[in-house]
């Protein structure tokens, strides 16, 4: 069964450093998302991406964050200068289509745990 793959599973970094979290969405999917879950809290939306551009972003997704689809398979989340409060589990998700086609079922990867020291 196709799945969303995220690497690394755990990333430890020093405050102020840049990190890149990587995701390989399901191959025929067109919509991509990042969510995060701070320990003990609920899963929160960060950003959605379609047709090579951001379609929506939350207030959390400030100038320190960026997303990119550098090639036909990868989808990355970059945090330019990490803060302690960026420590969380980051989930990538993808869906085949949008809501109008009834295909906006989002499938999630196993997540990357980011620890900022």
């Amino acid at each position: 069964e196709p799945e969303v793959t995220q690497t690394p599973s755990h990333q430890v970094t020093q405050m102020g450093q840049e990190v890149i979290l990587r995701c390989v969405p399901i191959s025929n999917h067109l919509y991509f998302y990042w969510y995060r879950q701070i320990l003990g809290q609920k899963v929160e939306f960060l950003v959605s991406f379609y047709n090579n551009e951001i379609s929506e972003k939350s207030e959390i997704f400030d100038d320190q964050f960026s997303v990119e689809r550098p090639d036909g398979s990868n989808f990355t989340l970059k945090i330019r200068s990490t803060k302690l409060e960026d420590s969380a589990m980051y989930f990538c998700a993808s869906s085949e289509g949008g809501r109008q086609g009834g295909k906006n079922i989002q499938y999630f990867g196993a997540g990357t745990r980011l620890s900022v020291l």
Partner: protein
Amino acid sequence: AQSVTQPDIHITVSEGASLELRCNYSYGATPYLFWYVQSPGQGLQLLLKYFSGDTLVQGIKGFEAEFKRSQSSFNLRKPSVHWSDAAEYFCAVVPRFGNEKLTFGTGTRLTIIP
């Protein structure tokens, strides 16, 4: 304001007992509804979804959920739980109009006792 509520933070049931996890939503129009499960150290796995039609939907692992428009609820049920069902369960919605992001409830942690 639009919201998703899971009133039970933690539920403990005996193995073999029935289970019901509650989810209520507050949206202008009925959103698309989902249940996800997160096992310890794992990602989010889709259990089931409701878009329209039959209000009782079947999912994986023997789970089902019933959509009740009058109560703005989408409760998850299982007739007989197994020890492997111990996990965190999240109700989530996507609105029918506007953005397509998932909004999650706060989750219900399920503990199974022998």
